[in-house]
């Protein structure tokens, strides 16, 4: 039994020492053992704090375990020892109450300094409003008229083990957030439904997105690159499928990017206006609708339109999808307040809404044969 004990302790020590000396780098690899150092001054400070407290803990732990080990070896009954009779010592007891105090003060001071710096969101160069909703992020650049949703880009087939998983499995999005390096970027973080938490480990930024309240955080990235994170607060069924991807670009490249985005968004609005005068045919609506449905609706109403009984209603055979078209448009445009059914007016274009509604009215045996056009959606939106 003694040998087993030694082996075990050796094992534990080797675990701890690997953890201690494992090089941590910003490119996560399969056996990353330690916290990332990240790419901001703050994340570096956080990493240093982490290592300091970790080493203190290892030293304290090692000291305690060493004394225990000594006792279990040399003060064992089988060696024929006589037990001592002491059972208190005011001096010793005071010493091991006071010593930890001193260590704690030693820890608390640098921690407080870093914390104060982290909470100072003043004098930001740019501000981005980050809004979580089930299960995607929305980014809005407050200084430029640019905003977009960012959804996980991993295919369902990869998740269902039908396709091979790519290296960024679950950590890739259709439209990453882009920010400039060397600039103080302030994030205003909120939510449209439940609580989410916006987290990028490389920036040491993790802040909850609370519905109805706005939190603040900031970062100043030192190196251009792609940084990946995830939602960190349980937010329902697809909490595990809500990644955050941020691309940090040199300021000049960032300026060019944002100008380009503004142009794209302006053109898209013009396009919308033109669409109002046109009618799309069933085939086109169905194909666009199927794609939109898969990205925007299938998470809840399921790819087969059957929903999840008791949680998300089926659209297959539902009264709204078969009969009341105005109500159907209304639900998609405005959502159903107080439920998980959110408003899609901001998220989808008129064309996409028209297409997805058409799709829902004609897929899975919902054969109404009706089409919904962009102008129908627009009429409802303006009628409000």
């Amino acid at each position, binding site marked *: 039994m003694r040998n087993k004990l030694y082996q075990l302790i050796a094992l*534990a020590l080797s675990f701890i020492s690997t953890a201690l000396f494992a090089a941590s780098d910003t490119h996560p*690899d*399969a*056996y*990353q053992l*330690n*916290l990332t150092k990240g790419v901001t001054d703050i994340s570096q400070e*956080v990493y240093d704090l*982490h290592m300091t*407290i*970790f080493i203190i*803990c290892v030293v*304290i732990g090692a000291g*305690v*375990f060493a*004394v225990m080990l000594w*006792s*279990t070896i040399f003060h*064992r*009954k*089988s060696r024929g020892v006589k037990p*001592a*009779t*002491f*059972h*208190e*010592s005011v001096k010793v*007891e005071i010493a*091991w*109450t006071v010593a*930890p*105090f001193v260590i704690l003060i030693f*820890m608390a001071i640098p*921690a407080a300094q870093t*914390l104060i710096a*982290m*909470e100072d969101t003043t004098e930001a160069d740019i501000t981005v409003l980050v809004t979580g909703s089930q299960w995607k992020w929305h980014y809005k650049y407050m200084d430029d008229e640019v905003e977009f949703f960012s959804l996980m880009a991993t295919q369902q087939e990869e*998740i269902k*083990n039908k396709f091979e998983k790519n290296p960024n*499995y*679950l950590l890739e999005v259709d439209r990453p957030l882009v920010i400039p390096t060397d600039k103080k970027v302030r994030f205003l973080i909120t939510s449209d*439904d*439940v*609580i989410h938490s916006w987290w990028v480990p490389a920036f040491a930024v*993790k802040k*909850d997105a609370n519905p*109805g*309240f706005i*939190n603040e955080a900031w970062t100043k990235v030192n190196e251009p690159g792609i940084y990946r994170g*995830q939602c*960190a*607060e*349980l937010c*329902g069924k697809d*909490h*595990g499928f809500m990644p955050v991807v941020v691309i940090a670009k040199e300021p000049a490249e960032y300026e060019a990017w944002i100008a380009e985005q503004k142009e794209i968004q302006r053109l898209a609005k013009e396009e919308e206006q033109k669409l109002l005068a046109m009618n799309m045919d069933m085939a086109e609506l169905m194909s666009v609708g199927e794609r939109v449905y898969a990205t925007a609706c299938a998470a809840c109403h399921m790819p087969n339109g059957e929903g999840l*009984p*008791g*949680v998300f209603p089926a659209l297959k055979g539902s009264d709204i999808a078969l009969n009341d078209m105005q109500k159907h448009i209304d639900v998609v445009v405005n959502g159903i307040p*107080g439920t998980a059914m959110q408003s899609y007016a901001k998220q989808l274009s008129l064309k996409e809404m028209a297409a997805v509604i058409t799709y829902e009215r004609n897929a899975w045996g919902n054969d109404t044969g009706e089409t919904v056009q962009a102008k129908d959606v627009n009429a409802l939106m303006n009628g409000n």
Partner: protein
Amino acid sequence: MTTATDELHHDDHHHDHKPSGIMRWLLTTNHKDISSLYLWFAFIMFLVGGAMAMVIRAELFQPGLQIVEPDFFNQMTTVHGLIMVFGAVMPAFTGLANWMVPLMIGAPDMALPRMNNWSFWILPFAFAILLSSLFMEGGGPNFGWTFYAPLSTTYSNDSTALFVFSVHIMGASSIMGAINVIVTILNMRAPGMTLMKMPLFVWTWLITAFLLIAVMPVLAGAVTMVLTDKYFGTSFFDAAGGGDPVMFQHIFWFFGHPEVYIMILPAFGIISQIVPTFSRKKLFGYASMVYATASIALLSFVVWAHHMFTTGMPLFGELFFMIATMLISVPTGVKVFNWVATMWRGAISFEMPMMFSLAFIVLFTIGGLSGLMLAITPVDFQYHDTYFVVAHFHYVLVTGAVFSIMAAAYYWLPKWTGKMYDTTLAQWHFWCSLISVNLLFFPMHFVGLAGMPRRIPDYALQFADFNKWISIGGFAFGLSQLIFLALLIKACRKQGEPVSDQVWEGAEGLEWEVPSPAPYHTFETPPVVK
């Protein structure tokens, strides 16, 4: 006080005239019977909650979704947590208190035997309700055992009503149990047993019982507000109606943090009984142990928001809760140091209770130290809601609380049955558990630091290797508990060598002065403690 003893005395006249079969267990007011019910119930719940953990670990064995859908996965994490906390750990400690507190203080029974019966018998209903909700349309609770609003209100399914009701019952049971413990300890100690002569298990349970009475009503309040927000149009946690979802977390953790001490203080008591016995030396620093327990309990009321650093608290709040939390490590450290000092220059032997206690001290200390790391607010921003936290609380709850319960079972089982259990099986149980539990929880530190969030049914490829090992550890730990089951069944059938009254060579205390097995009624005339 006089009426209580009179009545107990009255009962004593019809010794052992108890109904047989199921009625004996349904109607019993005997602390030993009720305790056995509690302990078996806790063990069954431990296996049920463990089976759910197996589902979780099977899904996480590989990246991708293989076995369950995400919504069911969330139900598993939620119900696993609820069952382990309220169904396994807490009833097990209450069971131990029921058996041992009267024996340790020289009382004939618990002070309120009928309430004792009730506090147990409502529990199976609470858990039947909770478990049956898994089978209703839309499934069971899926918002985590912390049931944060508005995920648990506006966005939850209809099993929420059942969840709320079952938590109410669990709370009522805990409060009744706690009242019973307090009344028993304060009124029924044998002559001469002053408070500062009480065994530490009794002390820690006394303090735990006060914690329970203080915070279980807060939990009841929280679930009630969830219920009215969901069904009756209130807006406690809904900003649109003037409420605040973060207020839910403040209320929940005002309960939740003392709750974690409810689950660890009795463990401290158990370890403080066992280490001196097998070191053949008195507990080092008895008085400082008592004061440390009391200060942990008091501090536990002012640290709750360390679970909420990322919710966007004001800077001052973050600093306050960081420092208050760090302070808790001082009295906790005192405890660990005292145990080690008790072993120092003792004459140690390594029977099963001692092995579990040694494992407890080492592994609980690891969990305590990672807790200290989590207290550092700026670094907690990185750790929060990752597997690092999962590793931390499983070190304190599994290798902490659960190991202490096993230590207690191995320590007192011979007193309960009068026979020594199968020590070979016990050795197997210990070593399999010890190795597998570390394979299960240690690598969680690594994946957590590397950035794996908790409560996700699927994960990025970089976490795949460690998760495989974690799952293997999990299955092995789960299977190891079947060895314990076999051992317990053998023990309950009274197989094994008869033991002496003292059972363990170095054991001291009133419980070792009654015969083994402890008779149905003990201390009908109170012993005198010098």
